């Protein structure tokens, strides 16, 4: 996947379960300008499927990348979403 982007904002939803990661992502995207990129940091493993599902169904957003990492022994899921239109 393309990694040519700069993160504008980071949204931390660690510890939150479904549907909070998706709902907060939508709210954070609403506050961005077109072409800006949101980084979503979650611990909900379901977000790996939910964020792409949301991005595909929602107009004006594009999922750029997803990453699975580990922080302090905890699985962390990162999502990079670009706002494509205002």
């Amino acid at each position, binding site marked *: 996947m393309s990694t040519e982007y700069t993160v504008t904002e980071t949204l931390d939803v660690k510890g939150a379960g*479904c549907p909070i990661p998706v709902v907060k992502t939508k709210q954070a995207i609403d506050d961005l300008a077109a072409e800006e990129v949101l980084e979503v940091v979650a611990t909900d493993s379901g977000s790996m499927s939910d964020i792409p599902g949301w991005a595909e169904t929602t107009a004006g957003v594009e999922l750029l990348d997803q990453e699975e990492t580990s922080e302090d022994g905890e699985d962390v899921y990162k999502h990079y979403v670009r706002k494509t239109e205002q």
Partner: protein
Amino acid sequence: MSTDTPDASASDGPSRSELQAQLDDLQEELNDLQSEVDDGGPKKMVIVATKGTLDMAYPPLILASTAAAFGWDVTVFHTFWALDVLHEEQSKDLKLSAVGNPSMPMPNAIAAMPFMDSMATKMMKRKLDEEGTATVEELIDMGLDQGVEFQACQMTIDLLDYDEDAFYDGVTVGVGAATALQDMADADIQLLV
């Protein structure tokens, strides 16, 4: 000579220009329908919520706030025991029933003992908290913030003697089955929970 041979000079039947006019009309109608489909705005979802237990309060609320995040128009019509979910006090005190729940690791005879419902409720609340799942109150607030329309069925408000002022601010009252059906007829997705 076969009778179905095309004959441009036939005097009965539409002329070429009449056919062209008909074709133009159809094309125009198709364009109208197409633009109606394209500009239909966001998808619309209607959920009819009927349950008022702690476990069954969640599915409609989670689907509603997620659908709102998709940019959809969402209405949740609450009837019968689901009115408790919209009730500011009751919604914080929803119970899980241990009886008749095959997922409970105990026989019904034990589940029916007086303290079992409150124990099962406590266990589920603790689990929800550990998993970072939002509370019912948080999901209602989140939904209202996102423009979800929460409706409380007037017939069941009257039947079960609810005080309309006891619902969360922003809940719509004074609606009935006809309103719900009308909303469902216009919706893309209709669910009964």
